[in-house]
Structures are given as structure tokens and as C-alpha cells.
């Protein structure tokens, strides 16, 4: 019960501040991505700010944190701490392979008019049917799903299994196998299907120490695919945002993807 209330509060906070989410970039940055040895520890910083990986605005709420171990089991974070500008936690990599660390927030919302007055509602899909009054007009229903994620690998990389929910990257090139000067290919998927003709923003960290943001934008092809040739080593943020307007009974969709990958020299 307590947990539900907590999660709902977080959801409401997320949905109530769409502008904040738009203006500031959400990032989940690992301290290492490629590791060797029998086991290893990785720390993570999660924040929202204009400059990626520069914690100077707001810590991320991690209520939707899901860590998937290479064998598909769910792992728990340790040493969770919420600072002013960033939330941090550690992960003990206890098995070889690729670990997926994702903070996923999803929910439903509606905007409508009742008696000439504009009203808004947020909640779960189950509640939506009864939440909107019968005499409501100009009803716009929206489903929101926002994925913030990163990957780390102990030993040899293993396959990443997509959830089929919201926006995800299907890796043609493994996200923990990226090297400067090489070209990596990914496919943007929405609910498990290719998302064609969408703009991808790729931003490298460290903007505080240079004048040019050096952002890369690419557009996905018919198969959702896009390629990036890494100009420099560093930590990169990959973003996509897909808004699909509602029509009739069709619920509008507001999906975001914020991935972090590391490119090594």
C-alpha cells in the first residue's frame, strides 16, 4: 500500500511536469561500462540537467528503477542516495554478461472540458474509464512512457532482450562494444515495432570544457535503424521522443528514450 502511494506520487510528479522533463535532459550515467574479473562494482549517477552528465539541476526520481541481470533475473541496487542534484546507487555485478539498468516511468492522463471548465486527470489505465465524467467533452487521453537507461558488461557482452514497451533501442552493435572511429547501428523500436523517420539526438558529455556542444542528429530509416560514427571517446547520451496525437478512441502517445553509452578509445 505504502509502495503504491509512493509510486503514484512519483508518477504524478513526472506527468505533472512535462515541460521540465522536456527542457532538461534525463541521464543515468555509469562509472564504468566494460569490466573484467570474477565480479565488479559499478556506481550510477541519475540526474536531470541541460548539460548531460553535469549534475546542476535536479536529482532523478528512481521509483521506476529496474535492473536486469544477464540471466534475466531482477537485481537490487545498493547504497541508494538522493542528493540535491543527483541520485546515486551502486550495483554489484555478480555474474558475467550484460546488465540493463533502466528507470521507466509510465502512466495515463486525460485533458477534458466539463461545464466550460478545463480539467486534467492522471492515473493508471484501469482507473481511466471511470475517472473521466460522462458529461466531459473535448477529451484527449494520453499514454506516457519514459525510459532512461544504460548498460554495463562484465566479461563478454550478452544479448539484450527488449521489453516491447515504449521506446527502446534494438542493438545491432552491442552498446558495450563501442570504439572511437567505428560506426554503431541501432534500431529505434516503439512497442516492439520499428519507429521510422524519428529524430535521434546524440550528445557527448563534457560540454563544460568545450564551446561547441558537438551534438549529432540522425533520422531513423524505414526499419527504425540509424548509425552513429563516434568522433571521440566519451560518454554519450542518446535521445528520442515520439509524440503521436490521439484521434477518436485512439489514445495519444508520448514516449521518450534516454540512453547512455560509453565509447572507448
Amino acid at each position: 500500500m505504502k509502495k503504491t502511494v509512493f509510486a503514484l506520487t512519483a508518477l504524478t510528479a513526472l506527468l505533472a511536469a512535462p515541460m521540465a522533463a522536456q527542457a532538461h535532459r534525463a541521464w543515468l550515467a555509469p562509472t564504468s561500462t566494460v569490466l573484467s574479473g570474477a565480479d565488479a562494482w559499478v556506481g550510477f549517477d541519475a540526474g536531470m540537467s541541460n548539460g548531460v552528465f553535469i549534475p546542476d539541476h535536479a536529482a532523478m526520481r528512481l521509483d521506476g528503477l529496474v535492473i536486469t541481470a544477464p540471466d534475466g533475473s531482477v537485481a537490487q541496487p545498493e547504497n541508494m542516495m538522493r542528493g540535491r542534484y543527483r541520485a546515486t546507487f551502486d550495483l554489484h555485478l555478480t555474474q558475467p554478461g550484460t546488465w540493463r539498468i533502466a528507470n521507466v516511468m509510465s502512466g495515463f492522463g486525460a485533458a477534458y472540458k466539463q461545464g466550460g471548465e478545463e480539467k486534467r486527470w492522471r492515473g493508471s489505465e484501469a482507473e481511466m474509464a471511470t475517472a473521466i465524467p460522462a458529461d466531459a467533452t473535448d477529451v484527449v487521453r494520453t499514454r506516457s512512457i519514459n525510459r532512461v537507461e544504460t548498460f554495463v558488461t562484465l566479461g563478454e557482452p550478452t544479448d539484450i532482450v527488449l521489453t516491447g514497451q515504449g521506446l527502446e533501442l534494438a542493438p545491432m552493435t552491442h552498446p558495450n562494444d563501442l570504439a572511437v572511429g567505428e560506426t554503431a547501428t541501432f534500431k529505434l523500436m516503439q512497442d516492439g515495432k520499428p519507429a521510422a523517420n524519428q529524430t535521434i539526438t546524440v550528445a557527448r558529455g563534457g560540454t563544460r570544457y568545450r564551446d561547441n556542444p558537438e551534438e549529432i542528429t540522425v533520422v531513423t530509416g524505414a526499419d527504425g535503424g540509424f548509425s552513429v560514427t563516434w568522433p571521440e571517446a566519451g560518454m554519450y547520451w542518446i535521445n528520442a521522443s515520439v509524440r503521436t496525437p490521439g484521434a477518436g478512441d485512439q489514445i495519444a502517445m508520448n514516449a521518450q528514450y534516454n540512453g547512455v553509452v560509453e565509447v572507448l578509445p
Partner: protein
Amino acid sequence: MHLRSLTIALAATGLTAGAAQAADLTATVEIPRLSSASYHRPYVAVWIETPDQTAVQTLAVWYQQTANSEGDGTDWLKDLRTWWRKGGRALRMPVDGVSGATRAPGRHTVTASAARLRTLPAGQYNLVVEAARELGGREVVRVPFRWGAANTGRAAGTTELGAVTVAVSR
């Protein structure tokens, strides 16, 4: 920024038959003496790759063989970034005849018999040496050689590695 690919003087001088009975491929790796207040011996990997840089076989990896208060020696194998990515991460260390302790500055020899390289088809290859040092840098040196005929090759690093030579006796 990228891997250093050095020009090689590939001298096709045949070795005398007697010199090469023990080893059919002999590589020498020079670890330079560096004056550093906090010198640690480098981790070194030696492997054979095809001209398109696909790793074929690891010949030697020199790393800390024990655990200490900071961790196990295998924790830093990833710092041999190129080797780790191209093949090291697929190995289960230690590997017999490959794993060894870190070496002191000086010239070291790595040998491989034809029996050990029996799966290597005749053709053009690179011998690759990568060194990564704690609180130091990383360097990769490639030496082209031909397997299937007597020949020698030579290259040199500029920071973490000295001269690297390869001699194939047949």
C-alpha cells in the same frame, strides 16, 4: 587517438634451419625502463590478428596473478582495451601457456611452435602487442609478418613499448 600502426621494415631474410627448431615463431617485446615515481610493471597482451584486425590467437598475457587489497589481478585485464575487446573477454583466465606474471623492464621473448599455431592458415598476419600501465599510458604496436615462409618483422613503440620483433622460421 587511434591505434598506432607503425611502418615496418619487413626483411625476408631466411633464418638458418638450425636456429628455429624450438620455436617456429619468435617474438621479442621490449618493456622500456621509465622513470616514474610510481612505476608499476605494465599489463601486456601479445596476439596474432588478420590484416583486418580480427584477433586469431592470443600468445601471452602478463598480468598480476594474485589478489591484493585493491582486488584481483583479473579486475584490470579490461585496461588492455584492444585485446580485451577483440578476444580477451572471451577467454577464461588463466589460460595455460598464455597467462603469466607481469615482466620487469627489459627484452622478453614469446615463442610459439608450429604445433601451437596448427590452426593458423598460411598467409599475412600482424603480431600485436598492447601494454597498459597503472598510472601510466597504453600503447599498441603491430608488426606484420607472414606465416608459411621464413621472414622477420620489426616495429617500435614510443611510450609504453620499445622494440617489437617477429621472426618466423618456416
